[in-house]
């Protein structure tokens, strides 16, 4: 279990601008966006489609870089890291859970969970032990030798969560983890994530459309509202300064 300091900022997005080129048009996704998440928080990012929730998650995870602005994780700016360093940083600090689990179909549950550990100095025996422990935590120990095609959607997502936590990252980023699941299974997954947050102190940022996710998260950020508030505070600042 990790000991968290709730006053410590784990994730900080400062003056983020993100735009991309679509044909001849420059599409602005985020303009001067700010966000802070404390250590040990379970944040649900909600809001209508097209607001850039997944883009934010990718920026936090170092999967994408902002056009301008700072992405600071645990007091370290990651937007300035090279591709190689960013890969190493991701392996050490972030666990990902996606809507589509993207498990390797040729590997068993155990093999899939072991995969991120190939990047660590652990030997084969230690890797197996760690993977077994992660599978036990998500209740999939008995299915360790099954291939993904032999598992249900909920079980696959549990294995994906085990893969996300196996290298013991501080932050877990989830992009619509319950999007493909029925209500009962979605609740099981959310319970599991909440337990990882509560019992193991993982900082979790979850993008979701699932309104019931708010029951599990320690903070719900409605992105539309958050952006509006940001604009208001900017305006106020301008007025004060003038």
């Amino acid at each position: 279990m990790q000991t968290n300091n709730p006053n410590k900022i784990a994730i900080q997005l400062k003056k983020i601008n993100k735009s991309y080129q679509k044909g001849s048009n420059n599409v602005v996704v985020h303009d001067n966006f700010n966000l802070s998440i404390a250590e040990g928080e379970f944040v649900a990012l909600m809001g209508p489609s097209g607001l850039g929730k997944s883009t934010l998650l990718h920026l936090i995870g170092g999967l994408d870089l902002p056009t301008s602005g700072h992405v600071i994780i645990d007091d370290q700016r990651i937007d300035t890291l090279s591709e190689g360093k960013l890969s190493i940083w991701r392996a050490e600090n972030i666990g990902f859970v996606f809507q589509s689990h993207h498990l390797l179909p040729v590997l068993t549950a155990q093999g899939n969970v072991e995969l991120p550990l190939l990047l660590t100095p652990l030997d084969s025996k230690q890797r197996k032990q760690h993977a077994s422990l992660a599978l036990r935590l998500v209740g999939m120990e008995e299915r360790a030798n099954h291939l993904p095609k032999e598992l249900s959607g909920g079980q696959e997502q549990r294995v994906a969560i085990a893969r996300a936590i196996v290298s013991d990252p501080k932050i877990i980023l989830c992009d619509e983890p319950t999007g493909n699941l029925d209500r009962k299974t979605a609740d099981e997954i959310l319970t599991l994530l909440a337990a990882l947050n509560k019992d193991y102190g993982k900082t979790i940022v979850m993008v979701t459309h699932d309104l019931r996710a708010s029951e599990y998260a320690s903070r719900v950020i409605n992105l539309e509202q958050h952006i509006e508030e940001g604009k208001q505070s900017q305006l106020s600042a301008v007025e004060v300064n003038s």
Partner: protein
Amino acid sequence: MNIFQLVWRNSFRKKTRFSLTCLSVMIAFFLFSILAGINHALTSNVSSNNQYRLLTSHKISLARSLPLNYQQKISAIAGVDSVSYASWFGGFFKDETNQLAVLAVDHQSYFEMFDEYSMPKWQLEQWKNTRTGLVVGQAIANKYGWKVGDKVPLSSSIWMNREGVFTWQFTVSAIYQNATSASDEKQIFFQHAYFDKSRAYGRNMVSWLTPKVAEQADVDKVSQQIDKLFANSTGATRTTTEQVFIKERVQQFVDMAMVIKLVVIAVFFTLLLIVCNTMMQSNRERLNESAMMKALGFSSRFLITQVYLESFFMLALGALFGCISAQLCLAYVSHLFADFLPGMAIDNVHYLNVISLVFLAATLCSFLPALTLKRLTISNTLGAKA
């Protein structure tokens, strides 16, 4: 779990596709190895161990004879060490289907000059002292069960003896082994003196002369001097080194080999396209997984190495089976063609070529997938759309 296990599992992801591609690779390397075996047979006898031996034949054709007295005239040229000669007998044993390479040679000088033919000294002396004696290659002796002392009748389709028959009586005096090439143990030699005195026509003529040049002499210059000496006679000559002569004789086969080589190059090029396409297809199907692996922290280099190893594994497996089948096939076929094309075998240099080719092909086939993996953007591939 390690990268090799990952490569192994990914390779057999689509078993049918992998097997068929592997089969194509196997066929290409089978053809390549069979050709190498044939090429070996065509060229193994070309490498003479004596670069100072020349061959002087009639300028117009090898079928035309030269006067025997050329031996003294050539011997008088500065730089010529010694001169021997030979005539083509064109023999067969009992039946015309049992064709043999029989040569009448100067018994005084021939085996001193061609020292790659080795035999016991007493046998050589015995042959020199036996007018009708034969020196037989070990392979021929084995084939017909001949031993020293056996009486052997050999027939010629060209030469009639003075008794008016084409069958000549001989005695096996010596059996030789060839120290340099096992494929050249199929010749038979007998004394030119006996041949010359016994034949019904063409006396005092030889098929070709073999001058040996002194080591310090200029081979080209001596060759030119020999040809210049007989330039204006009816027996004008053409002198080349023995190596060039043999190469020219096998030229027709080498040209055929060239055609086959071109075909094999075309097959390999097609093969490269097939393997390349397989690798690209396989890579395209796994882009999401590759993006996920990148998200987990795997570098582009790791993913590229993985693709390279997959290409290498597929090519190496195909090449291995291709070479083994070619080796088995050549082992069988070489017996059937032992008389027509001896020396069909795959040498170690060919295997080095195969290994190099596998490495090269793996690099070429993984180049485009590697480029795709290098350019792979995780966020786009994993579906972040604003």
